[in-house]
């Protein structure tokens, strides 16, 4: 039923509201984020993983060996890591073919534009750091422009991680969750993102 489609599985506790694990596993491509956990949550999260979108320091070799990866190097570090063939060659040379995409400096502007395409600017938009989940929508649209995108488990940090509810509770950071959530709602309303 979903074998031609992509689903991005967020890490919010929202995921635990529906026992959609079996449906998630039916998707052609299942994208998970960061240090996602499926063990013990299979009823809700499913087991299948095709692509991991992650900040580079949350990636372990075992996962890289088994899955395709979208690797995010924070833009503030990119002067050190370049864009960043050198970095990949050094750190992940054995698994180079599994790195599906490495974020580029130009993505920063494009990610902001993805927001502005359907939302008005907000104060500080030029200095915020959009969250990994939000960026992943951009990467997936860029890599698979013709595939239907589904999402589940996204609550934009209304809660913590579904396996660790204490994560990111009231940490001061530069992620504009409120605006990302509005964007997500609007994308749903437009039918661009389909929520499972």
């Amino acid at each position, binding site marked *: 039923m979903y074998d031609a489609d992509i689903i991005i599985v967020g890490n919010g506790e929202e995921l635990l509201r529906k026992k959609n694990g079996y449906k998630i596993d039916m998707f052609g491509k299942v994208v998970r984020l960061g240090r996602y956990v499926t063990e013990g949550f299979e009823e809700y999260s499913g087991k299948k993983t095709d692509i991991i979108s992650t900040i580079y320091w949350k990636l372990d070799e075992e996962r890289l060996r088994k899955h395709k990866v979208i690797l995010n190097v*924070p833009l*503030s570090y990119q002067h050190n890591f370049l864009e960043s063939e050198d970095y990949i060659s050094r750190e992940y040379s054995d698994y180079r073919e599994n790195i599906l995409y490495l974020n580029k400096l130009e993505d920063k502007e494009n990610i902001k534009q993805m927001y502005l395409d359907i*939302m*008005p600017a*907000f*104060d*500080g938009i030029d*200095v*915020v*750091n959009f969250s990994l989940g939000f960026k992943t929508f951009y990467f997936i649209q860029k890599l698979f422009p013709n595939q239907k995108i589904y999402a589940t488990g996204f609550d*934009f*940090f*209304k809660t913590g991680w579904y396996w660790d509810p204490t994560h*990111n*509770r*009231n*940490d*001061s*950071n*530069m*992620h*504009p*969750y*409120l605006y990302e*959530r*509005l964007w997500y*709602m*609007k994308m749903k*309303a437009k039918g661009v993102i389909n929520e499972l």
Partner: protein
Amino acid sequence: MLSKIIQAINGKIKFCLRNDRTFFVSDCSINDNIITFTDDVDYIEYKEDLNNIDLITFANKTIPTQIDLDNIKSFFEVNAEDHRKNNITFDELLQKCNEYKKIFNKQSISKIKEAVLYNNTLEIDMLAKLGSKDVISLENCSSGEASLITTLYVKLIDEKLNKALIELNQCISDMDDKEFEQEAIIIKKDLIDNVNDFKRSINNIELKDLFNNWPTLLNPSPFNIHV
């Protein structure tokens, strides 16, 4: 020796002095090992004992040795580039102090000079964003000062919350979509609940960690610590 050095460099190489306080020195004279000068930041005239003071400069080859003192003209000629860099750095630090002076009250000038001299301005930058008129050490403050900081923090949170709610309302109005409006109302409630929970728990946060904490849904925080 310090007396000789200062007399030699005075007017050519800009410098600070440091004992239990910090001074950006100008117009100095020395008599019986007592230095009299005006501080460039607070414009107060000070008299300090050179026996208990450190000389601080900002580039190499700015403190002449005895051999340099014997041929001071050559010292200035040979090391002119270093001295130029030194004076630029001094002026930059002075400018920073003057910028902070506009934000904070007179009682804070001493702490500002200290923070700027040692490039330790993170905390006073936070306090400036908070709207504090006092430079307060978060690790070493009175209960009254702690209370003031917490009050200002809550005030800032409320300001940011109100702004976010106005933006949300504008967004709802622009969208003109009932389903979107219903979800946006939930977002507003989540945001308000998060802020209220945070405010209720704020007294449990150690003051030195305060700027690391911010209501999740109200991010991005004005205190850009974890990018």
